[in-house]
């Protein structure tokens, strides 16, 4: 049996190989913080593997060694009793030293991971049941804007996210970049991280937040700094006005069918605050906080019956003719 368990340990022992483990993985560090954490984890893992193996070896040898022949259970050998007392004491002391050593390693790692940079780029993230509001705030209101479920950051620059909740407790977690931090009702938390490499890193709510906790994902896009600058300039602009008749019809229906009561599209009369900002929804990669990959079909399925795809979420099903649905999808897809 120990053999089977050791083979099961292989994925641990070969961490570099596991680096291809996916886009939401603590074993695939793409940020300064996640890298530090993985190093700490690795130190702990080696100590743990050594201790466990030692225990198993002692256990096996202890069971298999030739035994003295005394049958009477109370006929104890005084020499053994004395020696075993010393050995147990020594091992206890060794345990103490190991855990104190690991505590120091842990605290050193903690200081590095939670080190604060005064000049970090600051975002505010507000958790909602079950989506993420992302606010890019700037001293100038003209440079401030709101988006949802997708976060774009420049590589190589420290980013500070201020975490708040609009309802229950959520937890912000992008394992490839750093560890998690809770979004707690009535409390402001913050988390800093730096992406080393450009890429898309998936994140997911990690604190149980109700019915659709499983469908509360998001993505962090780490962009090269100049690419990030271009994106920010574009994202700050209002939604593109449709020019074709179908798009115009969609825009009109968006207001007439109640969508605008909950959703904002900057530059239009749609200014609802309850649901995600949709100003640039056409450029997003997923629908319903990571539930479906973005496509006309996905948008259509979602708008036609949100309760089927993500039961219990706060978006009601709106009665729409199929032509109306097509117009709205067409309009939303233009909002790049």
């Amino acid at each position, binding site marked *: *049996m120990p053999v089977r*368990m050791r083979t099961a340990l292989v994925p*641990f022992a070969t961490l570099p190989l*596991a680096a291809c*483990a996916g886009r*939401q*993985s*603590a*074993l695939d560090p793409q940020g300064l913080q996640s890298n530090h*954490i993985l190093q700490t*984890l690795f130190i702990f*893992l080696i100590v*743990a593997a050594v*201790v466990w193996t030692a*225990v198993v070896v002692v*256990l096996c040898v*202890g*069971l298999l060694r030739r*035994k003295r022949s005394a*049958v*009477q*259970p*109370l006929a104890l050998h005084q020499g*053994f009793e004395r020696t*075993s*007392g010393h*050995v*147990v004491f020594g091992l206890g002391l060794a*345990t*103490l030293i190991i*855990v104190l050593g*690991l*505590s120091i390693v*842990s*605290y050193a*790692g903690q200081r*590095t*991971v*939670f080190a604060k940079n005064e000049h970090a780029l600051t975002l505010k993230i507000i958790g909602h049941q079950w989506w993420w509001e992302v606010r890019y705030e700037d001293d100038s209101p003209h440079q401030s804007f709101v988006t949802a479920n997708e976060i774009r950051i420049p590589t190589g620059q420290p980013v500070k996210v201020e975490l708040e909740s609009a309802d*229950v407790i959520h937890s912000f977690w992008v*394992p490839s970049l*750093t*560890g*998690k*931090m*809770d979004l*707690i009702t*009535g*409390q402001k*938390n913050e988390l800093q991280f730096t992406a080393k490499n450009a890429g898309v890193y998936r994140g*997911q709510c*990690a*604190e*149980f937040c*109700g*019915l659709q*906790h*499983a469908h509360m994902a998001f993505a962090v896009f780490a962009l090269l700094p100049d690419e990030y600058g271009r994106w920010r300039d574009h994202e700050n602009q209002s939604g593109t006005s449709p020019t074709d008749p179908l798009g115009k019809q969609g825009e009109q229906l968006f207001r007439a069918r109640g969508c605008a009561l909950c959703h904002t599209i900057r530059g239009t009369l749609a200014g609802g605050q309850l649901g995600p900002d949709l100003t640039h929804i056409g450029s997003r990669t997923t629908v319903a906080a990571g539930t479906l990959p973005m496509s006309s079909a996905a948008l259509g399925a979602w708008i036609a019956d949100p309760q089927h795809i993500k*039961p*219990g979420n706060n978006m009601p099903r709106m009665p729409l003719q199929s032509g109306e649905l097509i117009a709205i999808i067409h309009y939303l897809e233009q909002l790049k």
Partner: protein
Amino acid sequence: MSMVAEQRELRDDSLNGLQLSTRMDSIWRTPSGFSGALMSVDHKVVGRRYIVTAFAFLLLGGILAVLMRVQLAKPESTFLSADKYNQIFTMHGSTMMFLFAVPVMEAFAVYLVPLMVGTRNIAFPRLNAFSYWMFLFGGCFLWLSFALNVGPDVGWFAYVPLSSLQYTPTKRPDVWAQMITFTEVAALAVSVEIVVTVFKQRAPGMTLDRIPLFVWAMLVTSFLVMFAMPSIMVASTSLILDRLVNTRFYDSSSGGHPLLWQHLFWFFGHPEVYIIFIPGTGMVSAILATFARRPVVGYPVVILSLIATGFLSFGLWVHHMFVTGLPQLGAGLFTASSMLIAVPSGLQIFCWLATLWDGRPVYRTPLLFVIGFILIFVMGGLSGVMVASVPIDTQVHDTYFVVAHFHYVLIGGAVFPLIGAVYYWFPKISGRMLSERLGRWNFWLAFVGFNVAFFPMHILGLIGMPRRVYTYTADMDWAHLNLLSSGGALIFALSFALLLVNVIQSLRSGTLAGDNPWDASTLEWATSSPPPPQNFDRIPVVKHRDPLWFDTESMPVVAGLSVERREVLLTSLAEAEPQVREASPEPSIWPLLTAIATTVFFIGSIFTPWAVLWGTPPMAVALIGWFWPAGHKEDEE
């Protein structure tokens, strides 16, 4: 005074063996028939019911676990809806923690501790009966609610504000919170009984350093229950008040705070883990001594470790809250305190390893489960050291890594010893042996199934799978490991089915056990299997830590107890010198009636605060009936 008493009543020194047995049996026997069964205050009857009920809840909780594993076996499964899944994982956690793990350990203590310390009944036997009824009613209340689709769905931790009225306007969190109250009343009652039984009812000569390790473990556990449970009681009662009468303990917009809930919950919740694990260590020590054929090495070390674990367990609750934005230095200190608990746990493991090293192991099923326990628990302890580190925890907290960790600790640390304990003590309780052949199958299926089910979860957590998600998308790379884990869970479930088959077969046609089939050393093996209602015809006198190995021919006994009424011998706390002969209560229906009145009060009070008003008079009446003076003297020198 004592002269008068001697003239009036017959004592056990004036009867011979058979006469004495018959006489004691008739005094201590539970009345026959259905009403007799409801009145029983015999710790063995209550203990047996407690054990069977707790295992019934294990079965139910296990079925839920299998359902969850079926749901997660493949991505985007529609086997369970989100709502059902959330109810199920909440029910699984709540059932396993509150209706199985804690009660089953107390159940074994209720049955075994009086036998192991050589007395005739547990202290406060009526309270004991009351405790069982409360446990039963609380458990049934939870499960009936679940059957009626009002099962709690906010997690076994019920974090506010999710569990507040605003975000969960149904009755589900109230059901959960009040179930806690039921099980707490039950657990606190048993703890008091155990402490008093161990402190005051030990057989003469059983000084503190001759108490069996299992009894020591239950003593420490009982103190943990008494100090930890009030915290959750405050928490859950405040939650009900917030929900029912609009108080604002946890409402941040009115000066309350959601983290208050987390502190109160985990101040209970972490010791809770040790409330489950420490009895497991007691079982390990008992089994190990018997099957290694020698006393456990380092008796005082083991006891001091138990006590140290108990104290330390109250100083590490914050490690459940490392990602709530606590001050960094404070969090770092809780890392150190959490890891420190590895020292007493390690010392116990080293003592057990030394025992096996020197002993002459007899490989029967109980010992197999203990060996399995060591392999699994040590791994769980080590992953616990990892989780205790703040930076590592920020990654693995609330992921499947933690799910793997605590199942390694709880199943490895408590359930493996427990199943070993079932094989070990079943002959004492039923009078029949369990099949050794099925036992071996049971062990290997459990060991392989457990590891296949739970080991992959470590990796799942590290590659990003959070806990409490009812499904995941196909592109997440989690499907294979989840499928493997689900397969393991089925094998693990099969091992429990085998245990059930083994128990049923043995009850029908198992080999008769005799008094001491394992040649064990503690007092429960000095009486018949199953023990007679009076436990011992004559109270034994203890001269050694392992009385049955020391006095191989015949046990010395005490003489002079009454044979006309139920009487137990009280002894001094440290030296166990005889002090007083105390009357032990007769069977009574009042504990049941009190439990029913309390149940009506508890359940009523989640619907209307007025239940506090109309619910108390029936309880008062029942308690008056319970404590109505019996009209005779309670104790004599």
